[in-house]
């Protein structure tokens, strides 16, 4: 009896999930472990998960002093905030119009959105770079965020969500005397939180971790985003102080991890509600 209980479906499922989780967590755990090791220990031949001499504070101190870590995090916050704000402000009215209003160009717009989903940033990077360069706007928050203000993915996600909203609700709002703008502000947005939170994860995670675009438009550390800062750090340290590098990585990934853990329930709700998986 005890054997059957031990190998029950539930335990089996848990074991498989744990194994999967461990595979995904392994790099992160190794990063934390390395961040706590001294330089000698990292390059020693013995591999241990737990460091023999704790050097976490020294590594953190190095990470915080050798690059302007505060500035990097602030830049990341500003860029992600700007991008997310404009994406939502543009995508929500656009998706509302396409989902609930009847107009002739609706089909064409839908096709354009689908096409937009297919074009990667790398295809348009060069022309945008040239334009920003000509305008003399490289090395600015604007250069970092503006190319992402219109998110076709956001439009698509909100579109799917709004389509499921009852038409009667919008008809009632119109009869109550609301303008189309008021309907978006007072009826659509307050009921679209699950979609907004889901979109927030995709948007913030993508742009916080993005290295490709900042690498193109930013040259100095003044406007560098966290991943770019890491790159500068590696270059400055000639790439051998892995303890400090991992400590810096830890600091940079920590805000995302903390934000996710704090809002975990709402995020999961958002993802399941929109039927999207990350």
């Amino acid at each position, binding site marked *: 009896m005890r054997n059957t209980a031990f190998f029950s479906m539930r335990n089996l499922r848990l074991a498989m999930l744990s194994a999967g989780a461990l595979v995904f967590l392994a790099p992160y755990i190794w990063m934390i472990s390395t961040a706590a090791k001294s330089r000698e220990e990292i390059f020693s031949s013995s591999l241990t998960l737990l460091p023999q001499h704790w050097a976490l504070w020294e590594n953190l101190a190095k990470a915080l002093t050798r690059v302007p870590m505060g500035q990097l995090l602030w830049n990341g916050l500003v860029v992600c905030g700007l991008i997310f704000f404009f994406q939502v402000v543009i995508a929500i009215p656009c998706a509302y119009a396409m989902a609930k209003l009847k107009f002739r160009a609706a089909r064409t717009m839908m096709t354009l959105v689908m096409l937009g989903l297919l074009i990667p940033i790398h295809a348009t990077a060069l022309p945008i770079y040239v334009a920003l360069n000509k305008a003399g706007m490289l090395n600015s928050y604007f250069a970092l965020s503006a190319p992402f203000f219109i998110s076709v993915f956001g439009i698509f996600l909100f579109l799917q969500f709004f389509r499921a909203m009852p038409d009667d609700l919008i008809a009632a709002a*119109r009869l109550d005397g609301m303008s189309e703008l008021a309907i978006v502000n007072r009826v659509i947005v307050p009921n679209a939180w699950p979609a907004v939170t889901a979109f927030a994860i995709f948007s913030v995670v993508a742009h916080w971790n993005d290295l490709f675009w900042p690498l193109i438009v930013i040259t100095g550390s003044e406007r560098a985003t966290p991943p770019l800062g890491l790159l500068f750090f590696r270059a400055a340290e000639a790439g051998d102080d892995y303890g400090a590098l991992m400590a810096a990585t830890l600091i940079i990934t920590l805000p995302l991890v903390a934000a996710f853990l704090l809002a975990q329930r709402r995020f999961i709700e958002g993802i399941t509600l929109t039927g999207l998986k990350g």
Partner: protein
Amino acid sequence: MSAFALRNISKSYGTNSILNDVSIEAEDGEFIALVGPSGCGKSTLLRIAAGLDHGDAGSIWMGGREITAEHPADRNVAMVFQSYALYPHLTAEQNIAVPLAMRTLSTLQRMPLLGRFVAGRSTAQAAIKQQVLATATSLKIDHLLDRKPGQMSGGQRQRVALARALVRQPGVFLMDEPLSNLDANLRVHTRAEIVDLHRRTGVPTIYVTHDQSEALSMADRVAVMMGGKVLQFASPADIYDDPRHVEVAKFVGSPRINIIDAVTADNGAVFFSGKAVVDGVTGPAGTPVQLGIRPERIRLRPQGAKGIAAIVTRLEFLGSEVLVTTQADGAGDGIVIKAAPADVSHLGAGSPVALQIDADACLVFGQDGLRVPLRATARIAVDA
């Protein structure tokens, strides 16, 4: 001049005609029911009346003023939706206050934070609060004002939706199947309440339903719609007793009217099961017609009595009455009779009976479905 009128409304999607020259008007304080099977265009007509949809032709009038081109918000119409369409993120009180707030507060006063500092806001808001409370009290939902729609039952939501429509004192009330999401018990109860409410407020009401008993029991006048046309627009009694079209006769009444295929004879008599039941039908002999007889207008007599011979095939006991299905020659699917339980206690399946039919119970319809007028002089000629 009627309080609210829809004149010659037509609407089609591509080649698919939804409404075909429909005219409906409501007098002051009148309760109009639009009834018909699903897909007959009644909801589309209501949406056109509200301004949510637009007809291809026709005009809409309110108290002598044409409002065809006006925006829904400017028409002063209130609508109750089948799904209630309450704002899920607002409490009952806020839901009811929305139409008032959108009308009486300026854009600036409605601003989330800034609005607080605009002059006159608090007075206006106090007035709104008072009106909301008065309306809620009259509908007995004042104890629900703090709840959100998700925390209310279907019946409670329905009342909040009614209150939201009522609070602004509209020129016309439009209701789109407001009872169809309620359970049967509550539906009958709420029916009476809506009629009471209508009597108290006196606002002309257009009520869409697919339930003929709802339409007959609530409305002052009923418009029966089918295939995008109004087949008949008359009082419930006229609709029931004097239907203009065979489809109206079939749609109204439960159990359904008996429809029998028959042929006219030389003298304009209509024969059924070899016996003339009514005469006076104008037109040439040999015309195929449809004979309609309400189940409660047929009387069961013992076998051999004057009448049409038939065999009982089924008895359905409904408490206060019994539905007797009988089979007679040439009656197709059988004839249903509504009888008192005491009169049929001796009958069972297979019992032979005679059906006595009065000539004035016979409704004759032509091939096109329209009522065939009978010559007044020669109505009663029951040879049965």
